[in-house]
């Protein structure tokens, strides 16, 4: 019987959970299509989270105790009103609304910190990502060799 779904804003205690989801997704679709580093470690992720200083955030979804999805929200260096958002969901948990729920948490967090728009790259050949961002209202555009999305807040 599946456990209860829960969503949290992640902190250092959750880095292993996040890394486990990231590695599973990289194994499924490869680092390029997943838009994740091939060898993400808990230490590297913890250092990354430390740099957020309360502006960026990672949100984690769990079913029971098992981590199943996460969203990463990071402010852009050059533009304090623009944040990058990425969402990753384990294959067997897709089409359940987890990504949308995580994106809504990230959007609320970003808005509260003066964010005016979310932006990010959509990996080539990742049609699920393109559909996901289209479905949450983002505007997608083919730029150069890839795709990017923008979601005004």
């Amino acid at each position, binding site marked *: 019987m599946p456990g209860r779904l829960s969503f949290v804003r992640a902190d250092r205690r959750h880095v292993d959970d996040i890394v486990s989801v990231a590695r599973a997704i990289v194994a499924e679709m490869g680092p390029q299509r997943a838009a994740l580093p091939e060898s993400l470690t808990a230490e590297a992720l913890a250092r990354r989270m430390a740099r957020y200083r309360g502006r960026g955030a990672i949100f984690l979804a769990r079913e029971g105790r098992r981590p199943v999805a996460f969203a990463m929200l990071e402010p852009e260096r050059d533009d304090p009103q623009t944040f990058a958002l990425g969402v990753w969901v384990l294959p067997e948990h897709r089409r359940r609304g987890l990504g949308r729920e995580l994106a809504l948490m990230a959007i609320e967090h970003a808005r509260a910190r003066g964010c005016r728009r979310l932006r990010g790259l959509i990996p*080539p*050949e990742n*049609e699920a990502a*393109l*559909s996901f961002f*289209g*479905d949450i*209202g983002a*505007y*997608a*555009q*083919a*730029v150069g*060799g890839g*795709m990017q999305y923008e979601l005004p807040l």
Partner: protein
Amino acid sequence: MAGVNQRAYLVLEDGSVFPGRLFGAARPIHGEVVFSTAMTGYQEMLTDPSYAGQILVLTYPLVGNYGINAQDVESRRIQVQALVVREACETPSHWQAEMTLHEYLASQDVPGLQGVDTRALTRRLRHHGVMMGAIAVDETPREALERLRGQPRYGTIDLVRTVTASTPYEWEEPPRRRYHVAVVDSGLKYNILRLLRERGCQVTVLPCTVTSDELLEMGIDGLVLSPGPGDPALLDYLVATAKALVGRLPILGICLGHQVVGRAFGARTYKLKFGHRGANHPVKDLLTGRVHITSQNHGYAIDADGLRGGIEVSQVHLNDGTVEGLYHPSLPIITIQYHSEASPGPMDNVYVFDRFIEMLREYGGSR
């Protein structure tokens, strides 16, 4: 293998990508992407030849809810390249409905895309202007964009020749024949013929390549230059026909026919940023001061500055001031940029056909 409900994309030439799901036929296509704000009348719009070469986006969020019937067609086939909607209804309800929108599109191999954020798409087209687009099926948006860039642009093709009647034909005889009218088919809608017939006109429909001499030899009482698709600047042959008949026959020009008459009187035409497509466009009659709510479907307009030969602007669009009608104080010519035949849209403007009949009577006398 492509199929219904498969994920597909509308890709605009600026790289914008709008995801959706296929319905109708599952095949890639390209065309100029335009939007219509009409809330009903999708069957009339689909079969309106003025939409030839275009991918039609409907802003109304639910389309297909009253199905498809045999009565509401405006030409012999679906004319749009593809249809893009927010939601295509799968369970229509109407006593005349014979099939669903999906079945209709599929029966004529025309693709549809639903689930599209048509508000965002329309805002993009309004802001940046109409542009070419492609429906991507079994290909990435990037591949569709590359394919699109290899296609001819909408304004470079004489689309009138693709939709015109291949041979002359007679419309159904009126119960009491008063006049014989020729309609030059540049992409006409059947309701023009229906409304002429209701007013006692025997109607002969002719291909767009008919010459002025051929028309005069027919002994007709008047001429209608029909609506149609594409850039009027490509239609020198139609302009020459109209020019040769000015003052020799009563002429009614509708939409593209209005632009052809404008060109015959020296005006140039230009492309509108996103065109007028919908069923509630306000037009002011400068002679009466009255405002008409009109049905419109055009992407080009007349520049009044070039008009010569005594023809005058009779009507203007209240949203952007563009020319919506012409009349000549001493010659039997009236033109309108909008669709007096409606289908879809308000029937408020069928008076234009009554005026044309008056012109026939004054010019040639009733038979």
